[in-house]
């Protein structure tokens, strides 16, 4: 059972997508798994022959539980039975991890929550979008951490960071990004931004090019003027599950991903004192009347930094066409994904990100 994100401790094996005896290659979707946060297909991390489906559909399994066995045809059934018999769910660092799941940094922009993963390798900072938080990266952070030192943080007004905004603008949030880098003592980093977070990354790069090693812009704001006003207004004004759920459907290509706990978590966030004000200020300043106020395409192009642009082909919030407004960037439009492409097509996105980061 894979571990998606910091809070995942168990998951339901919804169903197998492959039969025993199938030859599997890396990236194949082999099973459907659902957590209290999200449901998604599990892609094979290794290639091989699926000899045994241990996990049963509909059952709940702890993270790292044995769900299936890959082995060459040469290995005998008895051996496999023995392996299954002997398998114990690794204790893992779960307890220790539970402590270390989130940290807080007191910065000039206020108290910011962040997660830090991985040891050596280049510094990577993940910046979520409007109304999001660092859990938007739950399918990415661990994968990137394999080869980099990854930071994901909540922007002011978001997640569990301070809810007060010094300045409700892209530049203001870019300032907070700088403050965060100072606080965690990161001189320069590879910036990965999603949606509004991409504009924040770009704006920061424009102001402090020296602190940015590369830019990865996902479903980015700041590359054109259009943005789905219905989504923004709907997200800001929604007061109940009934109002919020249809709005969130704009985020994914696969609407089944918008489950109850996703909606509930966002409602809980929106109901914290100060959040409503913060979102209203940002929406009013950044996208009044459904028009993006900060378009940075030229500015970014001028920087000449290694720049990756990733988009979900079915993005209903910011048109994928904006991907082409950035000359000189590597552009990847991914089918079967919407605005939250980094969640819907995680492994593909992770692959592209590592490509841009490691050069």
């Amino acid at each position, binding site marked *: 059972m894979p571990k998606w994100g910091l809070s995942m401790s168990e998951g339901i094996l919804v169903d197998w997508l492959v039969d025993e005896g199938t030859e599997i290659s890396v990236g194949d979707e082999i099973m459907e798994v659902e957590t209290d946060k999200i449901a998604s297909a599990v892609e094979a991390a290794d290639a091989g022959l699926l000899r045994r489906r241990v996990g049963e559909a509909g059952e709940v399994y702890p993270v790292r539980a044995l769900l299936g066995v890959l082995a060459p045809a040469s290995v005998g059934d008895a051996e496999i039975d023995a392996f299954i018999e002997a398998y114990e769910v690794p204790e893992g660092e779960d307890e220790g991890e539970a402590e270390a799941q*989130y940290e*807080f940094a007191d910065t000039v922009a206020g108290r910011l*929550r962040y997660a830090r993963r991985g040891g050596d390798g280049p510094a990577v900072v993940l910046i979520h979008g409007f109304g999001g938080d660092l859990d938007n990266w739950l399918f990415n952070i661990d994968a990137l951490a394999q080869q980099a030192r990854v930071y994901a943080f909540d922007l002011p007004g978001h997640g*569990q960071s301070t*809810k007060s905004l010094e300045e409700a603008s892209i530049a203001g949030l870019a300032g907070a990004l700088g403050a965060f880098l100072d606080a965690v003592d990161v001189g320069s980093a590879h910036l990965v931004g999603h949606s509004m977070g991409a504009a924040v990354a770009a704006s920061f790069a424009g102001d402090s090019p020296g602190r940015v090693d590369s830019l990865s812009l996902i479903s980015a704001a700041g590359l054109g003027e259009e943005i789905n006003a219905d989504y923004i207004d709907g997200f800001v004004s929604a*007061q*109940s*599950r*009934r109002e919020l759920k249809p709005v969130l459907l704009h985020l994914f290509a696969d609407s089944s991903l918008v489950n*109850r706990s996703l909606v*509930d978590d966002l409602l*809980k966030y929106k*109901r*914290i*004192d*100060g959040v409503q004000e913060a979102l209203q200020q940002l929406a009013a300043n950044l996208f009044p009347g459904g028009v993006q106020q900060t378009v940075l395409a030229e500015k970014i192009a001028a920087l000449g930094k290694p720049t990756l642009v990733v988009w979900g082909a079915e993005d209903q919030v910011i048109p994928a066409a904006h991907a082409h407004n950035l000359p000189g960037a590597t552009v990847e439009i991914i089918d079967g994904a919407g605005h939250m492409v980094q969640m819907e097509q995680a492994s593909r996105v992770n692959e592209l990100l590592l490509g841009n980061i490691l050069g």
Partner: protein
Amino acid sequence: MARKLSMKDAINEALDQEMSRDPTVIVMGEDIVGGSGSPGENDAWGGVLGVTKGLYAKHGDRLMDTPLSESAYIGAAIGASTCGLRPVAELMFLDFMGVCFDQIFNQAAKFRYMFGGKAETPVTIRAMVGAGFRAAAQHSQMLTPIFTHIPGLKVVCASNAYDAKGLLIQSIRDNDPVIFCEHKNLYGHETDVPEESYTIPFAEANIVREGGDATIVGYGLIVHRAQEAADTLAKEGIDCEIVDLRTLSPIDIDSVVESVENTGRLVCVDEANPRCSIAADITATVSQQAFGALKAAPQLVTAPHTPVPFSPALEDIYIPSAASIADAVRKTMAP
């Protein structure tokens, strides 16, 4: 930042944060400080079960121990609420309403209407409800239906710490009189609770479990019993949806109807006595609004029409059990 908190501590935190945020919030009740005027420790109790413990140290005389004189101090809280304060009055056990009910249902509930919309009565009355505490007939009742019957009152009953904090803050900020019911057997129950202040709007039921076969509706302690029942039933292939009402007046009947339109089966669970209970009320309303969607007769699981008994042997069977809820669901599934 979210962390595990018991319902008791969540309520304490809600009071603390609202008192810090709004100087007009005062808290009064019997022993809510504890030891006032006594030779020993002040803040000795912090409420009979320690819910308000420690607040006196932070907010001083904005917490007031009252004499055992419910009519006087509940009435005073109500009067003060029409004069610029936002009092939170603790009526230790809701059972004690008998000695101050006039102030609640003839005064607080009616001011706005009687005075042609000129009065606002932002008072919150906190009280413990529910059985299972071995507290016998006069300290264990679930009297919520008596209050939901009264126009002008709002009635809240949280099933967990997160809801308790958000609903209590909402109650204190609300400009109508609110009866905030705390199930004493849930005080120790822990959930993730944000450190920040937050509110949960009234009339929004919480779908604590989604399912397509049957809808179980309840509030307070019962919600946990329903979850046990749903787990059992899931193994039998029966997929239950559980609706936690959270607020009983106003009540989110739409969520219940929506759910029943989806499942076609309704089981209403209520720790109150059966006659004119919340369960009976919901059954009637759903039968009226979604009769066509019903695949089976709605089932009610309530306490019997008796006072709450003392003997643990009796009290344990007085409260609707997970088993009885599961049986009721099975009944609706029977062909």
